[in-house]
């Protein structure tokens, strides 16, 4: 296990700043996910930590030792790549053995080390194959095995599940945390799949344009995203956004959607008289059997099932689109007119100009923590 600390790390290519003043601390044995859309600087940041790319500014500390100017081979870490980066001219065995061939290990020790990690990843039967003879899944496992072989205290995983099919990705998503736990390593995991981020990360750092936008637990990111963009990136189907202006009367703070009042708690009071964006997660909209005082009438456009969910695209009377999601197997209308109710406790409100959440996630960190 290792701790990792980045202090004001900045990387520029020509005049473009791809990593902008990033500071992160990762505790011993923690898994930190670097999440962001492509081009956000995740991969460059990972390479900076690995030492194969040099930062223009800032420091990289591993176990409180300044590693900024230390060559990659002396940082003692393991890394897996999105494109697997297997050595095409070496067998799977030699690929996995590559971190073990440094120093004075006997052939016997190398073989034991490779066999152990190969067994763990269930590729012990293909060790004599060249990379081109491996299936995609086996390549991916070989590349993970190579990263793990030297038992590095710090593991860098660059979107390792990106290039495998959905089924395998799902399997690995469940399997990987166990593997990483067994290693006891501190892990930096890069991904642009929000499900992977939430499943694997003890904390998630959301990157956009080289800057860290938010760091938090999966709960914090999903329930109190700092910006509209983060809310958009987490969740499938995507969150619904509506331009609104907050109002206040004797009943409290509210916004109006389709002539229906949605009451807000006081923490969102800043939206009053301010152009705002209302965010409603598709799963917090529920179908109700008939029109009632607080329901919204909608017209269903299409029903599109999605992995154990049923997603419905509907339009409000004002012609605004609304995505609604409900668990598979639960009843709901498939066509025509229907009524929905919105869970007011799950509403998000953002400043229309800055895109910032009116509720500061930092203030809620302790309150919103789950029992888990």
């Amino acid at each position, binding site marked *: 296990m290792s701790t990792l600390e980045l202090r004001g790390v900045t990387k520029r290519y020509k005049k473009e700043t791809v990593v902008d003043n990033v500071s992160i601390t990762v505790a011993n044995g923690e898994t930190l996910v670097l999440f962001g859309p492509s081009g956000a600087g995740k991969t460059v940041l990972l390479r900076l930590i690995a030492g194969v790319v040099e930062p223009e500014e800032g420091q990289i500390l591993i176990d409180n030792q300044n590693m900024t100017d230390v060559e990659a*081979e002396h940082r003692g870490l393991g890394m897996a*790549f999105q494109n*697997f*980066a*297997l050595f095409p*001219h070496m067998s799977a065995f030699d690929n996995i053995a590559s971190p073990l061939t440094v120093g004075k290990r006997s052939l016997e020790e190398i073989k034991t080390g490779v066999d152990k990690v190969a067994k763990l990843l269930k590729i012990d039967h293909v060790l004599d194959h060249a*990379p081109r003879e491996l299936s995609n899944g086996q390549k991916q496992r070989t590349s993970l095995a*190579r990263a793990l072989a030297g038992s590095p205290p710090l593991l860098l995983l660059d979107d390792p599940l990106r290039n495998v099919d959905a089924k395998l990705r799902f399997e690995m998503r469940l399997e990987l945390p166990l593997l990483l736990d067994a290693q006891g390593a501190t892990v930096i995991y890069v991904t642009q799949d929000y499900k992977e981020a939430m499943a694997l990360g003890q904390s998630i750092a959301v990157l956009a344009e080289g800057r860290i936008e938010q760091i938090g637990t999966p709960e914090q990111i999903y329930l109190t995203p700092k910006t509209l963009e983060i809310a958009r990136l987490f969740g499938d189907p995507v969150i619904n956004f509506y331009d609104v202006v907050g109002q206040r009367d004797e009943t409290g703070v509210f916004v109006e959607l389709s002539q229906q009042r949605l009451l807000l708690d006081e923490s969102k009071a800043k939206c009053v008289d301010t152009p705002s964006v209302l965010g409603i997660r598709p799963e917090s909209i529920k179908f109700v059997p008939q029109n009632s005082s607080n329901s919204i009438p909608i017209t269903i456009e299409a029903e599109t099932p999605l992995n154990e969910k049923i997603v419905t695209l509907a339009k409000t009377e004002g012609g605004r689109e609304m995505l609604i999601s409900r668990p598979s197997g639960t009843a709901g209308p498939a066509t025509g007119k229907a009524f929905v109710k919105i869970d007011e406790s799950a509403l998000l409100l953002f400043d229309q100009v800055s895109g910032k959440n009116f509720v500061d996630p930092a203030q809620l960190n302790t309150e919103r923590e789950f029992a888990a």
Partner: protein
Amino acid sequence: MEHQSKLETVLRGAALLLVVVFFMFPIFWIFLMSLQTNETILRVPPSINFEPTLRNYKALITGKLETSAASLEINFLQNLWNSVFLSVASVSLALLLGVPAAYAFARHKFKGSEDIAFTLLSFRFAPPLLVLLPLSLYFQKMGLANTYLGLIWVYQLICLPLILWIVRGYFEDISPDIEYAYRVAGHSWFSTFRKIALPLAGPGIAAAGLLAFIFAWNNFIFALVLASADKQPVTVGALAFITASGIQYGQIAAAIVMSIAPTLALALYAQKYLVEGLSLGAVKG
């Protein structure tokens, strides 16, 4: 569209044959010439009816050239050896210098690196005569004129840019991630260069080496100006067959056959290796 009928197969074969004949005919004709005497070569119209003779080859190997007018001494085998030595030594030196340089240009983009690389390439398209006159003067002064060392040095103008530019492309095609992976596994940059970059660029290095070898072998002008008879390669040596008593077509043909034989053999041998290496492909993992 995807069905291939018999007729198509036949037509395709015929077309291929035509192309092969078109390209191979000159070599084939020269080979025939090398087995003839001047008289049969110069018949009009030309014919492939003749009595094959090995006297042209014999003359080249013994170094005694019998013409109708006189007997001449020609040191063709020395020329052949010069060609082999000059080409091999030049290409070796160019590989030794060019491959690491190509790697540096491919992997470390520094300020002006592109300009330096381009300047090196520009040596290829400057007319050789431009540099020959000053060079021969300098070489005279430095004592490099008519030495192997001087020629090998000048041959770098031909070999180095070729190797640098071809090999650089191959290095650039290797995903940096593959090298990063080896570095992170605990290996120094030099060992990464040796164990990863070199083997993966192997086919490219071989191709560049082969090409440089052919260019060096075929060079004429540098050797003509900077070397005298005992250091001259076959390209220049062949001039000796244009004698006072006429042009010795038979011997020229034999000389050509003997001088293309090594390059041809090398190319055929390397081809197998090149194809094998390229099919290793999957450099991008």
